[in-house]
């Protein structure tokens, strides 16, 4: 069995909690069995799959704290059945999705270039942008990241709907069983889903046409979720309002046509590139653990299906 109890910074955490590291023992399964009844929290720093068998070994487990962004390595419905809460650090990705969207709609990067080139004094005002409040946001994949994007955009007065493999019963947003219908009823698509056979090029020509001439697409998911060649054509022909991208099919190669466009914002795959994402993970973990052990409400909780 792979070592799934991995502590990233023992010293820091061990001042607060009793740490058990199966790597200390030659037989990690035996190690886990021996300590099973005292293990209430599982820390996983890598997205190592947490199997049902492992959870069977940990009857006292109440919380899984993950560092990875997605939660594909966990069977969330299994966790829910067992009464185990799950947290993860997908905030940075959600933050960037919102940052890219505001930039595309308001032209922040483009207006910045306008100022730096001296045009403001020479030619007058920068052209008008578009209001974020009231926009209909279609989230493709309402997992951990999608939920955090939704929470942020709701505060801006946006209307949230989503497409996901299955409808989420406890979620107040409108559900569309397929992405085409979602696009027909949205002003913005934020792509946050995992990449699978089904989601490869899920944002294709038809979806982009359905989104419409003023539609905006933000991709902070995986590179192959959008048909990039088609997207470039839509942009060049003015058949889509704008895009904000953190990922590209052949990164670091980026289609050159995009460099000429002001309604496009390009990010070099930096959604999870803040030092805090790595270092202060401990801060977050300690915060979560302290709250857990003091029976306080937990932040960064993942919505269990």
């Amino acid at each position, binding site marked *: 069995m792979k070592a799934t109890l991995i502590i990233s910074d023992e010293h820091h955490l061990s001042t607060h909690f009793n740490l058990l590291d199966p790597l200390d023992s030659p037989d990690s399964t035996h190690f886990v069995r021996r300590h099973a009844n005292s293990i209430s929290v599982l820390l996983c720093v890598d997205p190592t799959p947490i199997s049902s068998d492992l959870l069977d070994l940990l009857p006292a487990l109440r919380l899984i704290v993950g560092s990875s962004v997605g939660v594909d390595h966990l069977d969330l419905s299994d966790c829910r059945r067992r009464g185990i809460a799950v947290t993860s650090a997908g905030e940075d990705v959600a*933050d960037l999705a919102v940052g890219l969207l505001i930039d595309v709609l308001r032209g*922040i990067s483009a207006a910045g270039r306008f*100022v730096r080139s001296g045009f403001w004094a020479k030619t007058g005002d*920068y052209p008008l942008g578009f209001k974020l409040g009231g926009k209909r946001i279609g989230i493709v994949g309402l997992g951990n990241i999608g939920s955090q994007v939704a929470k942020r955009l709701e505060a801006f007065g946006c209307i949230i709907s989503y497409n996901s493999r299955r409808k989420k019963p406890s979620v107040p947003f409108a559900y569309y069983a397929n992405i085409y219908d979602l696009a027909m009823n949205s002003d913005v698509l934020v792509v946050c889903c995992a990449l699978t056979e089904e989601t490869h090029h899920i944002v294709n020509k038809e979806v982009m046409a359905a989104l419409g001439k003023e539609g905006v697409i933000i991709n902070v998911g995986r590179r192959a979720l959008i048909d990039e060649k088609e997207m470039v054509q839509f942009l060049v022909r003015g058949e889509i309002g704008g895009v904000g991208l953190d990922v590209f099919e052949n990164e670091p190669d980026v289609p050159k046509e995009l460099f000429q466009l002001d309604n496009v914002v390009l990010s070099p795959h930096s959604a999870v590139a803040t030092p805090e994402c790595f270092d202060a993970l401990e801060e977050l973990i300690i915060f979560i653990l302290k709250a857990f052990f003091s029976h306080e409400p937990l932040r960064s909780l993942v919505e269990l299906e």
Partner: protein
Amino acid sequence: MEKPVVVMINPMSEYLEHELSTRFTLLKLWTHTSKPKFFKQNSNLIKAVVGDTSCGADAEMIESLPRLEIVASYSVGLDKIDLEKWKEKGIRVTNTPDVLTDDVAALAIGLIMAVLRRVCASDGFVRSGKWKDGDFRLATKFSGKSVGIVGLGRIGSAIAKRAEAFRCAISYHSRSQKPHTDYKYYSNIIDLATNCHILVVACALTQETHHIVNRKVIDALGPNGILVNIGRGAQVDEPELVSALLEGRLAGAGIDVYENEPEVPEQLLGLDNVVLLPHVGSDTEETSKAMAVLVIRNLEVYFGNKPLLTPGL
């Protein structure tokens, strides 16, 4: 009955210009080469002035227009209208609150993100083709950072609400503590700056708030701090801000307003930890139209002897 004579100061909105010209006798100040001559010729006709953030109605203008009854500003800020003269002459003033709150607040968050997550700088990095040679350097996380807001009015509150969705702890400074909020209040702006990571200027420009962000406040904010200004340029001591950024005493700044627009301090143009915008706080298609509608409706109700919709005082 003759249509009241309205003078529009700047070509601030084509839509507004068109709508005003169908309802009133519209004079366009910017089309006249000699402004003093224009005012002299029309001084006894002009009943209304439509100004904006760059030019409203200063003391001299108000003095030269003895028939002036109302100034309708295409802005929420009233700092370009001479307060003393306006009261002395009993002139009515209107502005455009509420309709632009969402846009300005969204821009404030956009600026924070642009600075902390280096959205603009990394966009430039990709466009320059440098990504092939190596990754862009790490940015700084936004979620969970402490945000201090100067002025918790409509716009300040809207910024707070949005920042809260990012788990930010909110604190504020204003003339007096606001009764219906749980945000931490600091009666002193230095204490606010000391205790927050991101300082956002969102108050109205008055005599008291002129240079409210000065050297001491910048020092209190510190070398990891970020300043965002979506209020008015004169609220920040611009030369002090420039030297703090050049000397690394401030981590970054997102600025939409300047002391002498459209002039932007040249030394800032080369800094990639600074995001510079050309006063676009409320510049969206939707909001520009909503602001224009408010200006028109205020003038219509005024000349129809009905109560003003959004009086400035």
